[in-house]
C-alpha cells in the first residue's frame, strides 16, 4: 500500500496520547514527543511544537500539573505529571477510543465487502 502523505492526527487524539504517555510517569514535553515517536515508529508526522498548546490546555483543565526541574542533561525543563483527574479522563477517552475504532473498523470491514460483485437479480 503506497502512502504519499503521513496520516493526519484526528482531533483530540494528541491529547489522549499525551495523557497515555504521562501515565507512565512525569516527563517534559520533549520526552513526551520522543516517546510518541518511538511507540508509533515515527509513522505520525506532527509538528513537534503543536504538543505545547495541547499540554498547556490539558494543564488548564486540571488533567496534568507542571513544575520546573533539572533535566538529565542538567537543563531547566518543565515536567508534567498526570493528576487523578487526568487519570480518570484517560480512562474515559481510552474507552471512547476503543468504541470509535471498533465502529470504524466495522465500517471498513463492511466496505471491503461492498466492492465484491453483487450477484445479478439482487439489489
Amino acid at each position, binding site marked *: 500500500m503506497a502512502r504519499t502523505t503521513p496520516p493526519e492526527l484526528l482531533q483530540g487524539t494528541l491529547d489522549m496520547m499525551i495523557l497515555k504517555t504521562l501515565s507512565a510517569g512525569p516527563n517534559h514535553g520533549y520526552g513526551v514527543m520522543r516517546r510518541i515517536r518511538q511507540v508509533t515508529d515515527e509513522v505520525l508526522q506532527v*509538528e513537534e511544537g503543536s504538543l505545547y498548546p495541547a499540554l*498547556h490546555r490539558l494543564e488548564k483543565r486540571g488533567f496534568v500539573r507542571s513544575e520546573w526541574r533539572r533535566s538529565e542533561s542538567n537543563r531547566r525543563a*518543565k515536567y508534567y505529571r498526570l493528576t487523578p483527574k487526568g487519570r480518570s479522563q484517560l480512562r474515559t477517552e481510552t474507552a471512547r477510543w476503543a468504541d470509535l475504532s471498533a465502529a470504524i473498523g466495522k465500517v471498513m470491514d463492511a466496505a471491503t465487502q461492498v466492492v465484491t460483485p453483487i450477484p445479478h437479480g439482487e439489489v
Partner: protein
Amino acid sequence: MSLADLLNQLMPHPDLRTPDQIARDVDDEFEFHLASLESELAAAGAAPEQARQAAVKRFGDADKYRRQCERIAMEDRIMLQRINAVLMVIVLLAVIGVSVQMYLTQRNNSQALADITTQLASMKSETDGRLAEMIQAMSAPDAGEGPAVVYVDGHVVRPGVYGLPKNGSLSLARMLRAAGGLTTSPAHVMVRRSIDGKLSPVFDRTVSDLSEIVEGDVKLERDDVVRVNTPREPGPSDKIRIRKPESPPAEDG
C-alpha cells in the same frame, strides 16, 4: 485519592504569572525542546548546523505555538481581570450607597437637632416670660393692688371709673371719647394726679370741643382724676396756677 489531592482538584489554580513571565517560560520550554532535539539529531550523525535547522523544521511554526500558549495562559488573567473589574464596580457602588445613606442620615439628624433646639429655645423663652411675670407679680405687691384705673367725673355722657389698658397708653382725649364725650360746651377739663402725695393738675384748660385737646393732650396714669366742669363752676384748679408740662415756656430770642 488523598485529601490533599481532592482539595487540589477542587481548588482553582489561577495563573498569576505576569505576561513577561509567561512569555519567558514558553521560550524556555521551546528552547529546551529544540536543544534536546538538536542533540538527538547530532548524536544520530547530523552536522551541527544541519542538526539545528532540522530541529527547527521539525518543531514547526514556533511563533504560532508561542502565541497559542500565551493565549491559553492569559485566559485566567483576563477572567481574573473581568472578575476584578466587576468586584470593583460592586464595591464602588456599595461605597457610594453607604455614603449617600450616611449623608442623608446626617442631614436628617442635623435637621431634627435644629428643630429640637428651636423648640427648646421657644419653650425656654415662654417659661422665662411666665417666670418673669410670676416674679414681678410676687416682688411688686404694691403695684398689684387692684387694677389701674382713672376716675372720670362731671359733664360727660358716662362718668365712672375706667380701667387703664395693661399695655400701651390712654390719652385724655381718648378717655373722654370713651366716656361718651362732653355734655357741655365749652367745658373746663382738668386732670389731677397724685405727685409726691399731693393731687396736682397736669391738664387744666377750657375747650369747646374734644378735638382741641389733641394739642397738649396728656397720657393718663394710674389713679388720675378727670373732671369736666362748665366754665362757670369753680373747680379746685382755680386755686392753683395752671400748669402745662407739654408746652415749653416761650423764650425770647
